[in-house]
């Protein structure tokens, strides 16, 4: 039960924090179509967050709601992957982060659709279509910008180099992962790697981008040890709930 709670936080916190980062672009992106596209991604991710954290709250059984989990935990209780808290950087960094995460997200949801827990399978089935579209969109842009101008190629390669060390964490397993995998509730993260690799390599190849050689992986997010960025995100995100406790909005 506790393992399931944690695992749901890992998914729901990742979608929440990524939605936050993506929504920072609102009104500031390079073309109107991207303003719309990114808002759409953020919107999907918030919707999924509501489902994942809603279920997490239910599983926890302490009377907390999805909003309580989103707004009233400090950084060390967050379980998102580190990659989603990376700063937006230029639009290339944002896109590359999205692509690397989307490819993982889609594999994860595909596996979760087979979950032994029907509640998990149901949410995954709802989310998977949205995420398939996210991946289609981000793959397309990564290809076009990687195989675009000299400058766009350089920026996308820089983004890939910077973000690559944050992908390894997606596939690391700990005790909780092992427990849930044994019960058939969640896939073992390491089992998602091969398919992810294949998808990512195909797109990056077409984008004429080179995968960095180092396999160093930043880790800790899933255990609540984050980068210094998360604290700032939460200070901003949670301000109203913290400053006006108990109010209804």
């Amino acid at each position, binding site marked *: 039960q506790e393992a399931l709670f944690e695992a749901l936080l890992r998914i729901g916190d990742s979608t*929440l924090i990524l*939605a*936050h980062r993506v*929504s*920072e672009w*609102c*009104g*500031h*992106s*390079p*073309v*109107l*179509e*991207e*303003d*719309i596209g990114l*808002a*759409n991604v*953020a*919107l999907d991710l*918030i*919707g999924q*967050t*509501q489902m994942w*954290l809603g279920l997490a709250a239910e599983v926890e059984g302490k009377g907390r709601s*999805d*909003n309580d989990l*989103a*707004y009233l935990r400090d950084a060390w209780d967050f379980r998102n992957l580190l990659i989603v808290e990376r700063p937006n950087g*230029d*639009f*290339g960094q944002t896109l590359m982060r999205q692509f690397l995460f989307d490819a993982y997200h889609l594999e994860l949801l595909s596996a979760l659709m087979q979950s032994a827990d029907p509640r998990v399978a149901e949410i995954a089935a709802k989310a998977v279509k949205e995420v398939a579209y996210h991946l289609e969109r981000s793959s397309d842009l990564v*290809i*076009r*910008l990687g*195989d*675009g*101008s000299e*400058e*766009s*190629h350089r*920026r996308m390669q820089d983004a890939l180099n910077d973000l690559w060390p944050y992908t390894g964490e997606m596939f690391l397993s700990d005790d909780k992962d092992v427990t849930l995998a044994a019960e058939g509730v969640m896939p073992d993260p390491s089992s998602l790697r091969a398919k992810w690799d294949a998808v990512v390599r195909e797109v990056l190849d077409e984008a004429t981008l080179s995968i960095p050689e180092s396999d160093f992986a930043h880790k800790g997010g899933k255990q609540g040890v984050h980068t210094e960025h998360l604290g700032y995100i939460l200070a*901003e*995100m949670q*301000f*109203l*709930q913290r400053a*006006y406790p*108990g*109010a*209804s*909005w």
Partner: protein
Amino acid sequence: SAEEQAFQDRIDRGEKIEPKEWMPEGYRKTLIRQIGQHAHSEIVGQLPEGNWITRAPTLERKAILLAKVQDEAGHGLYLYSACETLGVTRDELMELLHAGKMKYSSIFNYPTLTWADMGAVGWLVDGAAIMNQVPLQRTSYGPYSRAMIRICKEESFHQRQGYAIMMKMASGTPAQKKMAQDALNRLWYPSLMMFGPSDKDSVHSAQSMSWKIKMNTNDELRQKFVDQTVPQAEYLGLTVPDPALKWNEEKGGHDFSEPDWSEFYDVLAGNGPCNKDRLGARVKAWDDGAWFRDGLVAHARKAAARRTPAAAE
């Protein structure tokens, strides 16, 4: 001229003018200015509300606000498309905006300072916008009219959402109620200004009205807005910040104070609280995104060259 007379007759009969049809240069220019300015307002209008997305107080509110700002970008898209049918490109319009040669609605030069502003913007600003836009669904230029029909549908939804936020705030804790009143205080007069200067000071109006580009006078719409909004404020238990506000039985409408028009002209001239920040944010977004747009163009060229290798030789 005879052409102009025939054109005016068509308009008077209620016919729609379509892109490829003849139109007077003044009609085209006025439309480009008006639709372009409206499009710019939609995209600049993302900023004041975008300012609270990362700080929305619940996940539902965040989703609703995101969807709303996304709709605004969508409206910008329709309107730029409508404008492009008049022979000007979106990029040209953007450049005019960035150079300060085209305006956007001055209301977006006011800051959004509390969460209640997300309610008040929906309620008052979208409310005033709808008041302006509903009649434009019957405007003479076909693409513009069709864009307005789509937009009005979504805007009235936004207005209801804004009012729902105000309801929550006005019936919430004392601090929330104070926020709601504060938002009304700050946004009331700027909303009244959205209808433009008083009819007696308004330029271009007569010609635009005969062309059915403008359907009502500024003062008519402002009066209608006040009459619609005052009872809504009462229902919320909030006080409109106008001691002179009073129902006038005789005219069947409210008497109310004019906004401070010197402030209006100041803001229009660039001296509003956020003019520099708003335009600066848009220019920065455009400049920072140049490599992205260029990259996509470069890719499209390469792809085309690959499809027809001859062209590459």
